């Protein structure tokens, strides 16, 4: 397809954030926006509550951080205690509904992945996010035993990020076909790689773009 604007800049160095170099933001506007130093946005505030205190007492330094950001509470816990902490949240604190499990990839960090559990409690009408930081190739215990909903959500995280979940009943790709190479939501996954490879093999042309 004749998409002149994207074809040039697509094979980009995998290290950098791929989006930053796109000619997306108009240069003129960018120049205009840069000098007007925006007021710094809200910053995370420490989150003090009975529950956090209980958790800190129980796990000590396992709870790395407990903060509030624009009214949303989150807790960063150590990978070693995450299963225990989640189980405690479900059983003792009433977070009976696992809203979502997802991850964020920070390729420049040593612990590359933020793995996030978003939980909700029906009795308390309260949300909490539990985060843990993971190295590439590390895995965490699966929480399928705690919330059945985690089954597909964990599969999706595995599919998209390649994070393993120990004890998951059926950990395989969910959205992408089984033979897919790579994990697309990693920042170092170039969009066009798979496409180019496919057209080279199947159509015998250099690029589909």
């Amino acid at each position: 397809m004749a998409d002149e604007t994207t074809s040039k800049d697509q094979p980009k160095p995998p290290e950098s954030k791929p989006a930053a170099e796109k000619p997306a933001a108009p240069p003129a506007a960018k120049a205009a926006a840069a000098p007007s130093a925006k007021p710094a946005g809200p910053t995370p505030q420490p989150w003090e509550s009975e529950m956090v205190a209980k958790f800190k007492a129980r796990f000590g330094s396992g709870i790395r951080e407990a903060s509030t950001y624009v009214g949303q509470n989150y807790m960063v816990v150590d990978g070693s205690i995450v299963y225990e902490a989640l189980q405690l949240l479900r059983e003792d604190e009433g977070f009976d509904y696992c809203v979502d499990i997802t991850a964020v990839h920070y390729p420049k960090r040593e612990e590359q992945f933020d793995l996030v559990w978003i939980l909700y409690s029906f009795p308390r009408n309260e949300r909490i996010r539990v985060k843990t930081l993971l190295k590439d190739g590390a895995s965490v215990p699966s929480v399928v035993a705690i919330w059945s909903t985690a089954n597909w959500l964990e599969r999706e995280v595995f599919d998209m990020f390649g994070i393993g979940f120990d004890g998951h009943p059926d950990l395989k790709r969910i959205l992408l076909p089984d033979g897919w190479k790579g994990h697309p939501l990693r920042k170092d996954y170039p969009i066009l790689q798979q496409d180019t490879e496919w057209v080279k093999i199947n159509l015998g042309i250099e690029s589909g773009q």
Partner: protein
Amino acid sequence: MSIAPLLNKVFMVDLIKGLKVTFKYQHPKEVYTEQYPLERPAIAERYRGLPRLNVNPETGETLCIACNLCATACPEHLIVVQSERNPATKRKEMTSFTLDISRCMFCGLCAEACSTDCLELSQDYEFALYSRDGFIIDRARMERGSEPTVYTR
């Protein structure tokens, strides 16, 4: 079971109620179908159809100032604007404008970004083609605007 539900069941009132509804709708005035090429739907004023480049109706000059804002606003990067500086007026003038409507999703972000009244999403919705070739439209097509399909036998 009290008597009324039993009678309802035996005389199949529940089924007959449904039959009544479908029978009622047989009246020709209930028909909702639009006979498309004969009757054309009324297109709303704000309809986001095929993008169009407006020209000054008096002089026929384009309103485009080649600022490239539409190209940068397009999420799919479908717009390519080429311009050159006119040495006489010292102004940038658009030389070519292409748009790939095969991937356009008519979100209207380009028209929102346009700093003049030039780029606009028109009410034209009939631009289906038999091949992909014609989907990259140029300035002339966009300035001409809507070309309602005429059906003949």
